[in-house]
């Protein structure tokens, strides 16, 4: 048996995994050799796959790297196929302030590990991800600037996906279900907005920073989708930092695509016309905040889009922020091209017009109370403005896992294809949290028979038809 099991392990794959585990800890081969009482050449030979490990050596490596043996030896484990792409994509040379490369790579590894787990669940459940990938739109083939090209591509993609020019209520579901991408939200360095990687086996994989607000997550998703459309075989790591990075053609395309895909010209214009016709007033700050929520983007992104569409004066966003920094109370901001003083009252009126109990209370407190909540002296707080207007989507968070991923995990676990520990690892959770997540998937369905309604507990992962 001894030779049999160790002979089953491909020394090259195992060597690569050991090397990667060592690098993740920032250890040199010499330090590892020293800690384990090996000579350095042994570590070198094992990592190169030139020498097979013994059982004792393998256990010692796992202990030294804090890794589970199962991670190192399983065939379907992490292969790091995307790592070279991610290494090439790390944008440090483009940034004014470089970020720690090891931490950036860890984010990339995390995305790849999640995608590998997803693929493994699909294999266990024999449920491959249906893909409906669009053709590639090579940037170098376009004869127009990246911004114009982005608008054309965004329109084509919206048409292909049957989205028309309406706001997209669940962008993630569109990319997961209609396109077949693997989308994960997870913790990243604060300045990393999102990452993208692709290979034929895993398909398109997008990771978005889960700590960013909901609307920023939408933007990052659309941005990464743009990379999938144009430069599929090149990974992307999107850093929120100014510098040369933002001037690259591919990045300009990706941002312009996000703006056009999330806020299509015709959809925005129609919505604005409706707002203007209903009140015969110029666009107010409250309108801007409401529109941003309607299209699922940040107030800044909405304002810049309106500038781009020439529906507000160029520089409105900069003025909005600058004006509000000067004064000691609610400020006047001109969003319609008129005098600054006039617009001051408009957002209050619009916001106060919302028939919520909270607004009724605020109305009683005085006309400036809503804006005082949103506009603290010295800064504009879009989130507070959203709250003041009762726009609750801003409080939403994207879920870490795709629903399909959770259902596959549950099905695999209940079939006995995953142990409870393996399930917990797939969910990056402890065992009890994993049980909680599985319990939540035993949801309730309301049955309706004439005038009678009854609640039926169901296992959402179970098939509807009998086998």
């Amino acid at each position, binding site marked *: *048996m*001894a030779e049999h*099991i*160790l002979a*089953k392990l491909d020394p090259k794959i195992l060597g690569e995994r050991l090397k990667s585990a060592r690098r993740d800890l920032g250890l040199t081969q010499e330090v590892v050799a020293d800690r384990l009482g090996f000579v350095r050449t042994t570590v070198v030979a094992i990592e190169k796959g030139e020498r097979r490990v013994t*059982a*004792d050596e*393998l*256990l010692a490596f796992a202990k030294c790297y804090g890794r*589970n*043996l*199962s991670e190192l*030896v*399983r*065939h379907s484990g992490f292969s790091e196929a995307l790592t070279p792409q991610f290494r090439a994509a790390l944008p440090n040379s483009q940034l004014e302030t470089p970020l720690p490369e090891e931490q950036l790579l860890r984010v990339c590894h995390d995305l790849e590990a999640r995608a590998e787990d997803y693929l493994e669940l699909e294999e266990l459940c024999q449920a491959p991800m249906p893909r409906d990938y669009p053709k590639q739109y090579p940037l170098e083939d376009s004869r127009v600037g990246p911004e114009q090209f982005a608008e054309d591509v965004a329109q084509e993609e919206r048409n292909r996906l049957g989205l028309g020019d309406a706001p997209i209520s669940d962008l993630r579901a569109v990319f997961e279900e209609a396109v077949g991408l693997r989308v994960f939200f997870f913790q990243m360095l604060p300045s990393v907005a999102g990452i993208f990687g692709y290979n034929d086996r895993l398909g398109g994989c997008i990771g978005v920073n889960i700590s960013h607000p909901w609307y920023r997550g939408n933007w990052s998703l659309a941005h990464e989708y743009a990379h999938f459309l144009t430069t599929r075989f090149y990974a992307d790591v999107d850093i929120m930092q100014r510098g040369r990075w933002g001037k690259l053609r591919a990045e300009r395309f990706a941002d312009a695509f996000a703006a056009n895909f999330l806020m299509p010209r015709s959809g925005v214009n129609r919505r604005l016309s409706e707002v203007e016709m209903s009140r015969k007033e110029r666009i107010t700050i409250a309108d801007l905040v409401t529109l941003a929520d309607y299209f699922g983007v940040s107030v800044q992104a909405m304002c810049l889009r309106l500038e781009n569409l020439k529906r507000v004066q160029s520089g409105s966003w900069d003025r909005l922020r600058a004006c509000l920094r000067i004064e000691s109370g609610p400020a006047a901001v001109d969003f319609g091209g008129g005098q600054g003083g006039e617009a001051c009252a408009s957002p209050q009126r619009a916001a106060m017009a919302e028939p919520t109990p909270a607004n009724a209370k605020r109305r009683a407190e005085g006309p400036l109370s809503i804006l005082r909540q949103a506009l603290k002296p010295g800064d504009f707080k879009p989130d507070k403005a959203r709250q003041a207007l009762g726009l609750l989507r801003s409080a939403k968070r994207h879920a870490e896992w795709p629903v399909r991923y959770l259902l596959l995990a549950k099905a695999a*676990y*209940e079939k*006995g*294809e*995953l*142990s*409870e*520990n*393996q399930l917990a*690892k797939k969910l990056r959770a*402890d*065992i*009890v*949290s994993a*049980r*909680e997540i599985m*319990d939540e998937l035993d949801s309730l369905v309301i049955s309706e028979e004439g005038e009678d309604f009854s609640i039926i507990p169901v296992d959402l992962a179970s098939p509807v038809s009998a086998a």
Partner: protein
Amino acid sequence: MPAIVIQDACVLINLLASGRFEDIINGCGLSFAISQAVAREAMVLHYAETNEREKIDLQPLIGKGLLAVLAAESEAEKLRFIELTMNLDDGEAESVAIAEARHFALATDDRKARNLIQREGLNIELWSTCALLQHWQGRSSVADNEMIIILTHILQRARYRPKAGHPHFAWWTSLMSG
């Protein structure tokens, strides 16, 4: 010398959630152990009452001799451990490897581990959380109302209950509805 039962992490968490771990361990007439890989796992209990999470510290239990920690020692055990990690997680794999080699019993609720033992025809006596609790209740004459409190704790703190089709489903439900 009482029989030795190796607990995997799932059973260990459930028994710890009961709030009567020491009584159960002492009252079963068995010796209990865990594998080194299980001892290394980060385990947490959730207190629904206060919404708090408590990291489980095994050291006091090991120190009191309630649990022994065993590692794969011989070359054969180590190789079997490695082989089993191709299917199972480390904690389960080491537990099975030790139980198989040393003819110990194994306490696990894990369907995958149980299926593997059955499929490979391994000669390992199997226990489960419910089987241990029922054994302890019978041996130590624990009253039903006391058991209800224990099962409620397990349900609330470890989110465990046997599902329909489990051999102890009827035992659990009849106690809880009684």
